[in-house]
């Protein structure tokens, strides 16, 4: 079910939430373009969202909209030594050896903007 090569029910639920969130904010305005932010540490696979977007948006105000996904990469600040560092996954430690870090970026899961018919 969560095989990274197959259908991702998980990202389908996320994409469904995108549709709900846009409709909550925009009513039934026809959406031409949507821009999402999906951080690389969010646990959501951007390609899977792309993969199911057309299917999930069918029959909604987002049908036919172009999908743009920005993927902020991980950044953290060490709570022990104060260093700021990049992290490709949640397993990276600070150079000082500490795992005690505050994530500054990479966990985003939000709708940045939409373009609607004027």
């Amino acid at each position: 079910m969560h095989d990274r090569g197959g259908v991702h029910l998980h990202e389908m639920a996320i994409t469904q939430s995108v549709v709900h969130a846009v409709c909550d904010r925009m009513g039934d305005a026809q959406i031409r373009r949507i821009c999402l932010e999906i951080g690389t540490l969010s646990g959501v696979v951007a390609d899977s969202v792309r993969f199911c977007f057309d299917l999930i948006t069918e029959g909604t105000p987002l049908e036919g909209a172009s999908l743009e996904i920005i993927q902020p990469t991980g950044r953290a600040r060490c709570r022990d030594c104060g260093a700021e560092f990049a992290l490709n996954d949640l397993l990276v430690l600070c150079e000082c050896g500490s795992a005690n870090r505050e994530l500054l970026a990479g966990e985003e899961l939000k709708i940045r903007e939409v373009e609607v018919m004027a």
Partner: protein
Amino acid sequence: MCATCGCSGETILEPHEHDHEHQHEHGHGHSHTRTVTLEQAVLARNDALAELNRKWLAERSILAVNLMSSPGAGKTTLLERTIRELGSELRVSVVEGDQETVLDADRIRATGAPAVQINTGSGCHLDAKMLAGGLQTLDPPEGSVVLIENVGNLVCPALFDLGEQARVVITSVTEGAEKPRKYPQMFRAADLVLLNKIDLLPYVRFDIEDFLDGARRANPGVEVLQLSATTGDGVADWYGWLRVRLP
């Protein structure tokens, strides 16, 4: 340029003498759009419902704990034992999440505790709306404990706040020590990690140090308890963890 709106239109016109009125096709078939900044959490709707659940539970002094794991890690077995052993001390009821069957709720009811089964169908996690429905049906008494068995899956349940007070990730020694490295988001979301089936340690290769290192990397400082839901080894610590969280 389009005189009505100042946009550049879509057709590129040949340059021509402007000694005549513009007559060429420009029926506003091109699109005029505006961009609206939303900066909105994708899961805003779920998060709002989760907050309502949290408030509902707090008003009734109910402790709700969300148990998450891969299928077969031992969630239902641990719930059965917990209810049998703490049933006289705590009032426990259970919300069972499962894609299709009602088997787990039947197992819980056999212990004497009230249980409600939520079938998520193709959905692979519980969400806040489902828990709200489950709570309405269960109608748990004030000061009681609601244990929520999430759908067996180490990915999506981590993303969906239910309004619970605590999240527990269960993993078993038969699944291998690399689970925290493979599913760091889930371990990061955990308030407690339970390592189950330690009775099987003599029979499987499981590097506990490696497991603890992965868990620490994903979630520095997270508490990890080792136990066996079938033999009862180590469960006292789990009960202790529950007790200190009682409202």
